């Protein structure tokens, strides 16, 4: 027992002596050997440390406080196979250890100066090691790593930090294969008097090269006003650099930790790319589960052709996992007011304002490359100019990847928009000297025009609904129409991003609800040729077909025909329309002149109907009409048959009369037996002209509407001439000039009874003798 006690005492004394010796010679603890031992210990914990040369100094400040200084050359941590490898050419660490508590604690750290750094930090998870190697750490490494992770903070917990200077000549941070940051970095901190004092770090990055910035410089102050490592850190500084392929960006940034990994931030930056500018000022919050941006002001300048600025004020975005909301009023600063037809009078607002609101389900953090789904509302604020006013609201349900718009997008839109033209007459005046001038007789109208896009527009169906209505009138005229339809396009082509295959198409149904128009005053003598002769082809007609397709249906409502006012009819002509116009086919449908009374052949007559049936096959275009002329003893029907170009005119009566008698009655109001010779001849000529289809509808109408004195027809030339009586003592020659008729014989009727006749051969001996007579001739 005695020996046992003596042995223990001897050991304790030895330990105490050893400790005493170490206390007075602390350099024994940190020698190259012990550092090598510590490096091996760290390696076992998964932290690789090695150096080429090390020197250690120790100084005893008191009994329990010892100051150490370590100087390394080529101090490295990590290895090429690890996630990071950092080397410093020179490294100097100074720290003071307090042993008084039994457990050594670092009370002062610093100065620390690491210079000539060169490192690579691979945060991409891809290294030179194989996955298996990374997954199989050395035995005990985790425990050691945990020991180090537990000891080091504990060691530094009460340490006052001296000046720290870490300087990398080159530091490369790999976030992924494509995402790499490289530059010179300097991290510094001034010495802190006490742990409670604020901690301020300065971070400088020079010559940063990254996918987002090149030649960038960053100055960032990182501080903790509460001191120590814990508390709300604050960041402030500026960042500037060249965006690859773009311009130069600069921004002041301030951020403050709000706890739980959340930061509040403010920024004020500019971007300049060859004259295209962005300036933005905003603030927000960013945290592990939230990104919020409140744009105090932002302005994009010269980014969009025709738009000088896009200004955003109080534009807010908030993103949380699974959701992105936005509320963004913006104002477009157009370079110049868009002008309809190039006219200043028809300028649209130069600064239209709108508000964009979005509520989307999308990934967090928001990434345009990820799918988004939700609602998007755009409100175009009401605006007005001298002529126009309007606004629009778009409510859209969207689903798709923003960066791939419109490919594979689903876009269901409800649109309510309106453009209203208040003063049509002023528009007419404004356009009068332009190529967009409103033609007569529409240029005499005044009133309102409203164009609206209203309804559901679907990107899947490729359809945008349209509405159009007019309320115009003038003296003797009215033009009220309602049009509805849609502008459509090939949704698949749009979604595949093919502009050429869009196949835009307009389908419109125009209802002529109340239309009364005045036709131009036509002269009986020479109807003008307004439409080009279809037989004559011009080069411009052979140009390729337009990519724009359309199909327009033109209809009049039942009981409300278009009324056409003409100098050829005392009453407006009611016309029912049901026409289809398209880009690919000739006009089809019907034009029906409804029942209306008129004076024909000096009698009360009526148009029972005249129907023009247009067919895409031109030769099938048909004419079907019935005119009724009532007399005391019988009723005459004039049937219009055949085609528009070659109408066939047939006469019937009840009770039946021979055609020549019918013509006699129609043209001259008397039976054939009571006509004078010229009138009787005219009846014959008219029959011949009708049989040869030499009379078109206009000619027939003119003949029917005007008292005829005579009618001549030359089958050889297909020409007719008519002399109509305009009034007392005045008459008018229609159709061909008399000289154009090449009758076979030399016999010209001058008037009712007078003719010029040239006869050959009178005397028996001289048959070639010719005599010309002015004769009075009468048949009885």
């Amino acid at each position, binding site marked *: 027992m005695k020996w046992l006690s003596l042995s223990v005492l001897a050991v304790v004394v030895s330990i105490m002596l050893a400790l005493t010796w170490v206390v007075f010679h602390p350099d024994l603890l940190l020698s190259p050997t012990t550092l090598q031992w510590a490096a091996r210990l760290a390696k076992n914990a998964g932290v690789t440390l090695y150096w080429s040369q090390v020197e250690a100094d120790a100084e005893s400040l008191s009994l329990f406080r010892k100051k150490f200084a370590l100087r390394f050359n080529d101090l490295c941590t990590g290895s090429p196979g690890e996630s990071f490898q950092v080397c410093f050419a020179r490294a100097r660490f100074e720290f003071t250890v307090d042993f008084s508590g039994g457990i050594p604690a670092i009370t002062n750290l610093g100065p620390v100066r690491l210079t000539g750094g060169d490192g690579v930090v691979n945060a991409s998870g891809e290294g030179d090691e194989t996955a298996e190697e990374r997954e199989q750490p050395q035995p005990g490494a985790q425990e050691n790593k945990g020991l180090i992770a537990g000891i080091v903070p504990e060691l530094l917990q009460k340490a006052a930090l001296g000046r720290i200077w870490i300087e990398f000549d080159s530091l490369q941070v790999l976030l992924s294969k494509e995402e790499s940051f490289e530059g010179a970095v300097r991290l510094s901190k001034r010495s802190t008097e006490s742990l409670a004092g604020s901690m301020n770090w300065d971070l400088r990055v020079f010559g940063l090269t990254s996918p987002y910035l090149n030649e960038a410089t960053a100055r960032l102050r990182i501080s903790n006003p509460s001191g120590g490592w814990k508390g709300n850190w604050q960041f402030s500084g500026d960042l500037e650099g060249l965006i690859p392929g773009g311009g130069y960006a600069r921004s002041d940034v301030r951020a403050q930790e709000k706890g739980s990994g959340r930061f509040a931030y403010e920024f004020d930056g500019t971007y300049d790319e060859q004259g295209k500018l962005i300036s933005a000022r905003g603030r927000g919050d960013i945290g592990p589960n939230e990104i919020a941006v409140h744009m105090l002001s932002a302005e994009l300048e010269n980014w969009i052709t025709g738009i000088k600025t896009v200004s955003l004020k109080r534009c807010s975005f908030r993103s949380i996992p699974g959701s992105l909301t936005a509320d963004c009023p913006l104002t477009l600063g157009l370079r110049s007011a868009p002008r309809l037809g190039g006219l200043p009078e028809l300028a649209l607002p130069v600064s239209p304002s709108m508000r964009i609101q979005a509520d989307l389900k999308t990934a967090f953090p928001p990434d345009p490359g990820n799918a988004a789904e939700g609602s998007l509302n755009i409100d175009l604020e009401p605006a007005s100019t001298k002529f126009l006013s309007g606004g629009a609201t778009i409510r859209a349900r969207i689903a798709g990847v923003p960066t791939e718009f419109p490919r594979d997008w689903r876009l269901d839109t409800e649109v309510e928009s309106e453009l209203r033209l208040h003063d049509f007459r002023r528009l007419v005046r404004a356009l009068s000297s332009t190529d967009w001038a409103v*033609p007569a007789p529409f240029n005499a109208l005044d009133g309102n025009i409203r164009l609206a896009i209203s309804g559901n527009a679907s990107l899947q169906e490729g359809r945008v609904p349209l509405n159009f209505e007019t309320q115009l009138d003038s003296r003797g005229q009215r033009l009220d129409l309602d049009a509805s339809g849609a502008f459509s396009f090939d949704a698949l082509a749009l979604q595949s991003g093919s502009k050429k295959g869009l196949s835009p198409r307009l389908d419109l149904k125009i209802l002529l609800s109340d239309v009364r128009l005045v036709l*131009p005053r036509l002269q009986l003598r020479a109807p*003008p040729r307004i439409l080009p002769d279809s037989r004559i082809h011009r080069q411009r007609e052979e140009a390729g077909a337009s990519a724009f397709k359309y199909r327009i249906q033109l209809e009049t409502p039942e009981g409300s025909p278009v009324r056409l006012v003409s100098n050829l009819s005392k009453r407006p002509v009611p016309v029912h329309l049901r026409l289809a116009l398209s880009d690919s086919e000739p006009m089809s449908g019907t034009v029906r002149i409804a029942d209306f009374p008129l004076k024909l052949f000096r009698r009360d007559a009526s148009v029972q109907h005249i129907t023009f049936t247009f067919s895409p096959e031109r030769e099938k275009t048909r004419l079907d009409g019935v005119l009724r002329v009532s007399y005391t003893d019988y009723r005459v029907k004039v049937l219009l048959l055949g085609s528009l170009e070659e109408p066939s005119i047939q006469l019937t009566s009840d009770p039946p009369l021979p055609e*020549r008698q019918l013509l006699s009655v129609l043209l001259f109001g008397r039976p054939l037996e009571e006509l004078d010779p010229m009138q009787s001849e005219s009846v014959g*000529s008219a029959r011949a002209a009708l049989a040869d289809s030499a009379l078109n509808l206009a000619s027939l109408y003119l003949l029917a509407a005007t008292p005829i004195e005579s009618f001549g027809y030359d089958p050889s030339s297909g020409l007719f001439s008519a002399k109509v009586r305009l009034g007392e003592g005045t008459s008018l020659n229609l159709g061909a000039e008399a000289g154009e008729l090449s009758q076979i014989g030399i016999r010209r009727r001058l008037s009712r009874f007078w003719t010029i006749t040239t006869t050959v051969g009178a005397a028996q001996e001289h048959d*070639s003798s010719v005599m010309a007579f002015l004769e009075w001739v009468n048949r009885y």
Partner: protein
Amino acid sequence: MFAGELNREPILGSPVFALQPAGGAERGKMRFWLKLLPGLTFLVPLLAGAASVSVTCPGIMIQSDIPVTLNETERYLVCGEAKSEEPFRSAWKSIPRSQAVFFLRRFLESRGFYEPQFDRSEDGGIIVKPGAITRAAEVIVNGAPPDLAFQRHRGILGRALTPELLDEVEQWIKNRVQSIGYPCPLLQTAADVNTGRISIAVEPGAFRNFDGISAESIPGTHDSALRRFDAFAFSSPFNADFLRLSAERTVIEGTLLSTYFDTICSPPDPRATARQSVVPGLPHILRFGFGANTEGLVLARTSWRNTRLGSGGSTFDVSAFASTKEQRLDSSFNWYFNPNAPRNYLQPSLELRHQNEEPFESLSVRLQLAPGTTWDGDKSGIRVEGGPVWDLIKTLRGTGPPTSRLLSLEARAWIQTHYFEFYRASPRAGLLSRVTAAFNDEKVLSDVTAQRLNWEGQALWNWRNYFPPLLIGGVRWSLRTTITNEPLTNGSLLPSNFRHYLGGLADLRGFGRNELPDSDLGALSLAYAGFELRLSNQLPVSIDPLLFVDLGLLGRKSFSLDPPLYWSPGFGLRWGTPFGAFRATLARGMVTTDKTISFASREQLSHWQFYFSFGEEF
């Protein structure tokens, strides 16, 4: 430079007619009248700087080398009617510039201007520069029958390419196809303003003969009565020209007031090719007239005719005629006694006549009974009639017996091609000839034995058969002789109308009317031939220059012609009007040297003779 030539290439069995401007050496074949242009160079200074500027309305000015005038309606559509307040006018008070330009473009296109320019004047108006006229440079006709002979149609190339030109070409082709056996052609025309090419596709339809005529009935007249006017024979090839000629014959005769034929196309009728519609009119025609004949004489005429007697459509006519040189009262009855043979007739007639010509004055009565018939083939028609004629002639002045009575057997025959008759208003082709023979004997109710034989006619040629004609050549002739033993003396029993004279517009145009022979005794034989060449459709306002020479011989014996030769070269102008042709000729009467005529007489006969006529054709 647009002297056209025809290239004809068969393609897929259908001929292709191509009317193209001549090239290379052919360019030398310029239009005839262009060759005259050097002679008109004196007009150049007058025409220089003659660009036309017309103000259509305030704000619209047309500047063009070729005057462009808008008609009233066109002007209304481009200018509007600013002053009017009427409803249907106020809507068209103001025509905006773009609309005016649209209308102007259409109106200019209808005149052949397809490349107009519209500039803005200082006051904002429109300055219209119509540009050059697009002219027809080539005509291609596809699918037409080989006999179309489109090369006949000249004067297309070089004309403004207008709808009217297309109408004209289409109408000509249609008429032409219808005149060579195809009643129902269809045409489709396209014209290219860039090349000036006109392409016409012709579907001639089925070839047809005249298979029948479906005619409207005339009350009281047999249905076949109108067939006597047909200028064709059934089963001959269809020709629409002859249908028109038939209608014209009917109207000239007065049987119908108006009639026309229309071809039956859809549906085709195997029994009838055409349908004849009629306006009969009342049957009685009363006429009073006055005028002038080619000899410059004042005329008066009156007649009364019943044009539809009986079921055969016979006619009865009474007429009186008076001029300063002749007064006549005629009455005739054309009795178409058999409606089933409508071309056969019997014609009794009575004529009272007083003639006061330069060599003689006579009073005559003529009674005649002449059965006759007509025939029309596919190219010409013939009329033959003959019968007894009784003449009573009293010579009041000049040579011949105071009174002559003659009973003759007279026969007459006419042959006339249809196109001579068809183009009577504008002669250009065909033949007309008449033969007359009258026989009598003093033993049969006649005072003298004298047979008369006459053959006269005229033939016209349209050089190269052009349409419209370019050069028309004509010849007319007359051969007459009186066979008698009576001498040509003052005491002869031969009445004046058995004697022959020359001179006047009807034959020798270098001499006065009946100026030859240089004796009042006349001649027993006569031969005349006249040749004329007329340049047609080359000068403005339908004026045609002509050259002619007339030759004539007379003989004092039957079948015998004696010197001298009377001849008269000359020239003249023809002006075609809708009422007939005015002609003016200036010819030199000339007599060949012969011992039978004295120098003094020859000098007296040789002189310039001017004629102005209306209605006269060669």
